[in-house]
Structure formats: structure tokens, C-alpha cells
């Protein structure tokens, strides 16, 4: 896997959509956390960009591990393709996600996930399945595959969305750049505040558990994530230009 090739694709995609009709939502976040796998807190930052065109959304994301077990300028890449469909007036999002991780000097990880999600005013749920390939970069022949992992994310918002501000709780075994096995849930608190129609601030906190049910389960870690996202609606500005012609 050529990491730079993926990064270049990300940049080209960004440039392409900025000159097209898409709605672009870039999001930048910083995450500070602590886990049982590190003696000191970790710090990472990520850029995730959504490009929405009609009922399709394409998302790309990259992460830099600034302080971590393995600091790296580019430690993860995420690519998502999503289609919104309607079933009996209900919006359902079907998505495919590819995720690449470089968690250490030796180990690499490919992930492929298929997800179905829906929202109902205050409640949002995603369910899906996931395939993982773990391998050592110097010996990729001997890889380990985990197939058909169950993925889930359920959250409940205090206010019916969309609202100027909101706060919600949830449980999930996935994150932007991480797919856990189904027995390793995260419990989270999410919140956001819309500064303007286009600009949104968010703060999320997660509690991570080292397993569930058939272990003698221990606390694993937590993180606090602050993010900022903005909506760049190229379609509206393009339409305005056409009207004035």
C-alpha cells in the first residue's frame, strides 16, 4: 500500500469537489486521551472531509498521531462512500468504508466495513459488518483475517436534530479510524454547538471498556475530542452564478 498515493487521491478529491456542485463539510479535530496501553496521555489530530452530491456522500479522512505509542504524520486513512435511500419516507444511509491503519513500525491493518444507518429525531443507529486483515509489513504473506465482525453505534440526542446545540449519549464499537471487536464497546457523550449556520463546534468524550460480559472487565481508557466543522455549499453559490447570467 502506497500511503502517499492515498494522500494524493485525498487532495485531488478535495480539489475536484471544491470546483463542483458538492456540499463540502471539512472537519478538523484534536483528541487527547489515556489508555492502558500507554504510560502517558496520547494526542492525535484528524482531518475528515465530507463531499455530498445529491444523495451520495464521499468522505475521506487522515490522522496524525502526534504523541502516541507510534507517532506518525500519517497513521490512518479512511474512505467512505454512502448512498441515502428512502424506505417508506424513512431515510436510510448505506455505506461502505475502507480504513487503513499503521499502528506500529511492523504492523499494518486493512479494514472494510458495510454499514446501514438511520435517524429518527432523537435516536440514531448504525449496524453493520466488518472485515479486518492484519499483517506485518515485512511479511505480508502471513496475515490474520477477522471476518464478519458485528459493528454497532446507537446514540440518543437530547434535542431532536437539527438544533443549534445538542447533547447525546451512545454506545458503539467503532470510531472514525477504529473498528473494535463486538465485545469491546465504547460509551460516549457527544455535544455540538452551531456558531453559525455553516460553522459547528463539537466536544465528545468516550469511556472505553476492555471487553464485556465474559471477562473480568477492566477500564481501558478514555478520550476527549474537540472538533470544528464548516459547511461549504458550492451548489448554492454555483446556482447564484447561473441565475445572474
Amino acid at each position: 500500500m502506497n500511503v502517499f498515493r492515498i494522500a494524493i487521491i485525498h487532495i485531488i478529491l478535495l480539489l475536484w469537489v471544491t470546483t463542483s456542485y458538492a456540499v463540502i463539510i471539512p472537519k478538523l479535530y484534536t483528541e487527547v486521551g489515556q489508555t492502558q496501553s500507554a504510560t502517558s496521555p496520547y494526542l492525535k489530530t484528524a482531518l475528515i472531509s465530507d463531499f455530498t452530491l445529491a444523495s451520495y456522500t464521499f468522505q475521506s479522512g487522515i490522522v496524525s498521531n502526534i504523541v502516541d505509542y507510534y507517532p506518525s504524520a500519517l497513521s490512518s486513512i479512511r474512505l467512505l462512500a454512502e448512498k441515502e435511500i428512502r424506505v417508506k419516507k424513512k431515510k436510510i444511509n448505506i455505506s461502505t468504508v475502507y480504513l487503513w491503519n499503521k499502528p506500529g513500525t511492523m504492523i499494518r491493518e486493512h479494514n472494510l466495513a458495510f454499514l446501514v444507518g438511520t435517524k429518527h429525531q432523537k435516536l440514531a443507529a448504525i449496524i453493520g459488518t466488518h472485515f479486518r486483515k492484519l499483517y506485518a509489513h515485512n511479511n505480508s504473506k502471513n496475515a490474520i483475517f477477522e471476518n464478519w465482525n458485528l459493528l454497532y453505534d446507537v446514540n440518543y440526542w437530547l434535542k431532536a436534530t437539527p438544533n443549534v446545540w445538542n447533547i447525546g449519549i451512545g454506545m458503539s464499537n467503532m470510531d472514525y479510524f477504529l473498528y473494535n471487536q463486538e465485545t469491546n464497546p465504547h460509551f460516549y457523550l457527544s455535544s455540538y454547538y452551531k456558531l453559525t449556520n455553516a460553522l459547528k463546534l463539537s466536544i465528545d468524550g468516550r469511556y472505553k471498556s476492555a471487553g464485556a460480559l465474559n471477562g473480568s472487565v477492566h477500564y481501558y481508557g478514555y478520550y476527549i475530542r474537540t472538533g470544528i466543522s464548516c459547511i461549504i455549499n458550492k451548489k448554492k453559490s454555483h446556482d447564484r452564478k447561473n441565475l445572474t447570467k
Partner: protein
Amino acid sequence: MKRIALVTAWLILLASCNYIDIPDILFSPSSVNERFKQSQQWNESHPTQIITTSNESYIIMTMADSHVGTTINLTHFLTDAQNRSALAVVINGDFCTGHAKDYELFDTTIKQYTTLPIFTTVGNHELYFDGWNEYFTRYNSASYYFSVQTPTQKDLFICLDSGSGTLGKKQLAWLQALLKNNRANYRNCLVFTHVNLFRIRRTGSTNPTIEELHILLDLFAKHNVNMVITGHDHEKYSEQLGNTTYLSVDALKDGLPNAGYLLLEIDNSIRYHFLSIAQ
């Protein structure tokens, strides 16, 4: 929904049978970092065990998940190890239910094999019903290493406490330092820990979080660990990642149709054989 209902019914049934401790499966009663501290305090005042052999090739045998209770399969395993002149036996967690009476029964059984060096580590079940104190009183340490000295070579065996689903930050730092400072002095390096690392099949058994797994796999690959042996899932697997072999053993629990254990033939290479009680 059907699956959730089945799991819930199964948990209620097990709890009513006094087999699992419901509060303990939700939150570990003892901190893994505190357990590691106690283990290290004991290790510091006792020398690391070195087993010497006059042969270049030797046998180590290992099992997990006997869940004593009853000791039919455990006795079979220990007798087989003794008959094969195994150099040592590693009991890789969940050897009892956590109840004091089961610790006592297990202890009485293994003490009958006086010529067999027996090493234990802790699984989640040993921690139930406030079991850590029983474990620590009887076996002193759940995180340690021992070595085998042949006429020309030395091999390293590391036992880790993963009974709470994580090694914890102190034990992980110790493991990192141990591999960094000592791995090069040994020919082979084998790691024993209870919780299975991978989810090769559809299973409800808990794995370490993917973040911890990433670090462990990287560490084992970087330091050329030959073999990592686990239990917990009750069904054997063998996987290869880079140069490291990952094995999980069948449960040894009485009454299970697939009950079994593992035999390791060690010299310049390591050959493994899954042995079934039914054979």
C-alpha cells in the same frame, strides 16, 4: 433479538449455578495494575526460575480453561505430561471457577505431581468471587518469566496476566522493557496469556481492544517472539502473523467434547501438537 435473549438467559443460568459472578463480569474487582504491582513485588524478592536440561530438545505442555470444579481432564493432562517427561507445564488461566474450594481442589491435584514444574497464570475466572487473593496467596505471581537452559541455548517463557481483558499500562511497560533488554539473549521466546487475541470465528468471548492488540502485535513482531499461546475462547486456532505463531488451545474442562491441550517440542524450531482428551 433471539441471540440477545439467549445470551441473557445463559448469563442468568450461569449466575444461578454460581459459575460466574455477575458484578465481576461487568467490572473487575481487582485492578490489573495493582495485581501486576503485587506480582512484581513477589518477583523482586524471588529469583527467576531457570530449568536446566541435558537435552537440546525438550517438551513443554500447556492447557487452559479446566474450570475446576472437577479434575478428570486435569488429571489426564498432568499424568500425560509426567509420562512424556515434559520439562514444565504452563497452566494458562481459567483453571478454576474462582471459588476458594475450587482453588483448593486444583491445588491439591497439581501438588500430586511433585516432579513436574508447574507455572500458572491468571484468567478471568480466577478473579471471580474475589479470587485474586486466593490466587496470589497460593501462586504468588501472575506476571513473570522463566527460562530453559539446554547445553548450548537458552529459551525465554513469559507469562502474562490478561484476566481483565487488558495487560494494563504497568505490565505492558514491563513487557516492552523485558523484550527490549532481554530478547536477544535467548534463542526462542514464547508468551503465554489467557485471553485469545483474535476473533477468527464467530464467538462471544472477549478479546483485547484493537488498540492494545495493535501494540502487542507490533511488539511481538519487532522482537521476533516465536509463539504466543492463549486460551479463553474454548476452541483451538493456529494463525501466523509475520514470523510469530499465534495459538489458542481447546478448553480442558470436563465434559466438553473438544477438551484438549497443547504439546510443544522445542529445539531450534518449535513444533506444536493439539492433543485431544477423547483420543
